[in-house]
């Protein structure tokens, strides 16, 4: 009797294993949460030092056009505008191509073709951004110079490089969302007499719309945060862009080209942290957008 009682009341090996597994998971989670919170805190803290410690105006930061932190001029508007312009333009060009390729992959291509295409696209994702930047510098910039004159450095060159860089991301996410549309949607459309193109255009694309939007926003997040490749072709002059072919700078390009030349704690350094804070906030907003779209647009 006692033996059975003991067996039933004491912990078995499986139970303690279960507990250990749980603790391990929670520990990992805790570590990551601490890490994320400290990163957020660090950037916030540093980013607002420009306004709290150095007493520069946040309005000037967001609307000013003169960037010269050494002389306490911190107008970041040209960089903010350029960052948004290259991101949006790159997404605008990439989206139709991505949708076309994704439709081909999911609806038209034979199985082998799809596999091969996927391999190529994954390869494109893996190319380091400095390589894209170098190609941009040697090929895209001279091309832009021939097409629209000027020096070739600027928004158009940046857009073209980013377009190629985000294309694979947008394609594979779009293809995933197209694939997720149940096959009976297509069958029903075909049974009602629709052509294949009608089924794709009127049914599949409509149903996959939230997924496609998410794909585009993912691409935009990548474009917004890309530093090296853009820095090589954008020209790095903190000037309001006057056209597609005039040198300008993005938030990220300014950060990469300046961080080695400033000393921690000075105004110029704090101003760079403020740029980083803007980047962080923007990526948060992009993430929120993705959440809203996926929640509202999910097929029921």
């Amino acid at each position, binding site marked *: 009797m006692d033996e059975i009682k003991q067996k039933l009341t004491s912990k078995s090996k499986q139970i303690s294993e279960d507990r250990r597994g749980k603790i391990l998971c929670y520990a990992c989670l805790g570590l990551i949460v601490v890490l994320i919170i400290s990163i957020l805190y660090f950037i916030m803290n540093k980013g607002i030092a420009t306004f709290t410690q150095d007493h520069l105006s946040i309005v000037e930061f967001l609307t000013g056009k003169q960037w010269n932190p050494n002389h306490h001029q911190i107008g970041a508007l040209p960089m903010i505008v350029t960052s948004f312009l290259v991101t949006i333009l790159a997404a605008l060009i990439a989206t139709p191509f991505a949708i076309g390729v994704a439709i081909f992959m999911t609806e038209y291509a034979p199985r082998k073709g799809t596999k091969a295409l996927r391999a190529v696209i994954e390869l494109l994702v893996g190319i380091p951004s400095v390589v894209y930047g170098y190609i941009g510098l*040697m090929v895209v910039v001279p091309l832009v110079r021939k097409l629209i004159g000027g020096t070739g450095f600027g928004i158009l060159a940046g857009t073209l490089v980013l377009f190629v860089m985000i294309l694979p991301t947008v394609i594979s996410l779009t293809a995933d969302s197209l694939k997720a549309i149940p096959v009976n949607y297509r069958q029903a459309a075909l049974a009602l007499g629709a052509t294949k193109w009608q089924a794709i255009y009127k049914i599949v694309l409509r149903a996959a719309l939230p997924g496609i939007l998410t794909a585009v926003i993912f691409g935009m997040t990548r474009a917004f945060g890309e530093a090296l490749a853009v820095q090589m072709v954008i020209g*790095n002059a903190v000037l309001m862009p006057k056209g597609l072919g005039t040198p300008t700078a993005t938030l990220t390009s300014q950060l990469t*080209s*300046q961080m*080695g*030349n400033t000393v921690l*704690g000075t105004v*110029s350094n704090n101003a760079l942290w403020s740029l980083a804070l803007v980047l962080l906030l923007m990526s948060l907003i992009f993430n929120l957008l993705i959440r809203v779209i996926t929640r509202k647009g999910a097929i029921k």
Partner: protein
Amino acid sequence: MKKKTIIIIMLCMIVGFVGGCGNQTQNKITVVGSTALQPLVEKAATEYQKEHGGNITVQGGGSGTGLSQVQEGAVQIGDSDVFAQQQNGIRANELVDHKVAVAGIAPIVNQKVKVKNITMQQLREIFEGQITNWKQLGGQNQKIVVINRSKGSGTRVTFESDVMNGWEMMNAQEQDSNGTVQQIVANTPGAISYISFAYLRSQGIHPLKIDGVQPTTQNVATNKWKIWSYEHMYTKGQPTGETKKFLKYMLSTPVQHKMIKEMRYISIHDMQVQKTISGKVTPIKEGQ
């Protein structure tokens, strides 16, 4: 079983890595900073370790990084193209300056630009944005494309103090490394920029004479060529032990007479003039 082995191996690696980081002995020297000086120090460090042993790590990161790291005591030596006093946020009186070499800087233009010689005043006006066409300097009718260096970079600080003389530079596109600048000037019609002497023989560009003076190392030594800067290696307080020995090696004959010439710097021993932080140049007296 296999998983466990992998985990054990990984743990060992992590422990080894962390242990390795913590294992900082007196002999270890870390040099961080100026990318212009980095190749020279790297080469000298390799040679030094061959002869004397020791453990020297050389890293880039820029002059600002070098100065702030050495000030915090995170590294033993901070390389810089500018005087510590010229860098915002550095307490220069805590640092000891060791000038190891001199680097000349020359304006370069795209190969197709026909202008070969300009005056210092004209150069200033180009970078200020007053002269905008090569026509104004006797060249072809071609817009001048100014390519500047990143704000706060050593080369730019030198150019600003030696050429601009307190004038504001125009807001133009910026690049941060000698190599990229050379590429861009070679590929952009009508472009002008400035790079250190080591890059002057590259394809697609040619240097400009200033007031008829050629950008050569001899002219820098006598200050006939006026755009040059010291390459500094800063220590926090007077150097001791291994750091002191390495700095002494940097000033020795094999480095100063062989390596420095190969890499087209100018030996600190060859200089017949000296320059102060404010840019004042005086001749060096014999025996100094």
